[in-house]
């Protein structure tokens, strides 16, 4: 069934009631004009995405709300509404033009710099077995710190609660363990 387009007189009546402080009339008015506004905005070539259309629609609705006292009860409603829509669309188009003027479209590059050090890819240590042995050879406190903080990824607070060590002692133990591991593994 095709929807009947609301008449201007009916919309003007609703707006007059809204100005007099009747929320039901205002709700009906806003619910009636929302799909009309959405259609008008969708027709603009600039605003295609759903979120963009809804953002602009909400912008228009907020503007209508802010200046609803400027509606002259003796004049038609739609020219009043469409003048606001045109203004908000023009503002949005200007904002968009300003933003796009400062944006650069670039390819999704795989690397940041050509230097090999900058493109390590974040791989793990090459010899996990040697790393496991080195961790097992650490003093108890340092080993426990590495296992809790680095392998189980606990927070300092959680690791302190699990190990019974203070946060400061955990930090010191982790630092010493990392120094020892670096020394042991790079020496090989």
């Amino acid at each position: 069934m095709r929807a009947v387009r609301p008449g201007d007189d009916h919309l003007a009546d609703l707006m007059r009631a809204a100005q007099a402080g009747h929320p039901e009339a205002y709700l009906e008015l806003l619910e009636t004009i929302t799909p009309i506004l959405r259609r008008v905005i969708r027709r603009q070539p600039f605003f295609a995405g759903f979120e963009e259309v809804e953002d602009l629609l909400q912008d228009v609705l907020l503007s209508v709300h802010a200046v609803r006292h400027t509606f002259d009860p003796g004049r038609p409603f739609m020219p009043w509404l469409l003048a606001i829509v045109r203004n908000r669309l023009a503002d949005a188009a200007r904002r968009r033009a300003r933003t796009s003027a400062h944006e650069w479209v670039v390819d999704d590059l795989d690397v940041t710099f050509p230097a090999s050090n900058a493109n390590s890819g974040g791989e793990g240590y090459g010899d996990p077995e040697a790393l496991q042995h080195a961790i097992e050879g650490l003093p108890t406190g340092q080993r426990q710190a590495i296992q809790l903080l680095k392998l189980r990824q606990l927070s300092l607070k959680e690791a302190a609660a699990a190990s019974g060590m203070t946060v400061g002692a955990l930090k010191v133990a982790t630092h010493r363990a990392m120094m020892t591991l670096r020394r042991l593994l790079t020496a090989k």
Partner: protein
Amino acid sequence: MARPTADLVRQLAANSAAVQPLPRPWLRTAAWLVVCLLYLVLLDVAWPHEAPYKPIDGRFVVEQIAALATGVAAAIAAFASIVPGYSRRLALASFLPLALWLVVLGQSCAREWSSSLLPPMLSHWGCFPATIIAGLVPAMAMLVMLRRGAPIAPRLTTALAGLAVASLANVGIRFVHPFDASLIVLAWHVVAMFGVIGLATIFGNRLFTWRDVTDHV
């Protein structure tokens, strides 16, 4: 998009207090004129008169009526420009009296230029700040009244407001002006007027912006 549009609609409706519709542009112009005339009368009483008035002739009357008509037409157009739905062609209505005013001034200037009645220009530089002082209250009243509207054409609104204020200030200051010299009027008053219009047009976008109502919904 912070929230679904349907939620926003419900919130707007729930927060819709009664509002007083703005009076029609011509009614608001009348209210503004009352404020301006009271101020200009006070200014006339307080202003030190350096010399007696020149006798009022027909040219002076036409010039003043044209300036007043320019101010009134520009004020109506300015108040209409903040109400969505009014045609912007209303702004054209102020062009006719403005043209008449400038033509009358121009004719008088040409006559004075060719005669020996030309008064010393720089000795009357005080006309410039006098026009600004005469326009202060009309400008502030106009600004306060216009900011209640919708900023759909801020540059046009400020240009028309500047024209209205400057025209009315000219009318007011011409009654306390010691000399009836059109060249001085043209040089100081009209230059001041277009200066005000130019500044108002440049800064119009900053004077009139959309109110943020998101805090109230």
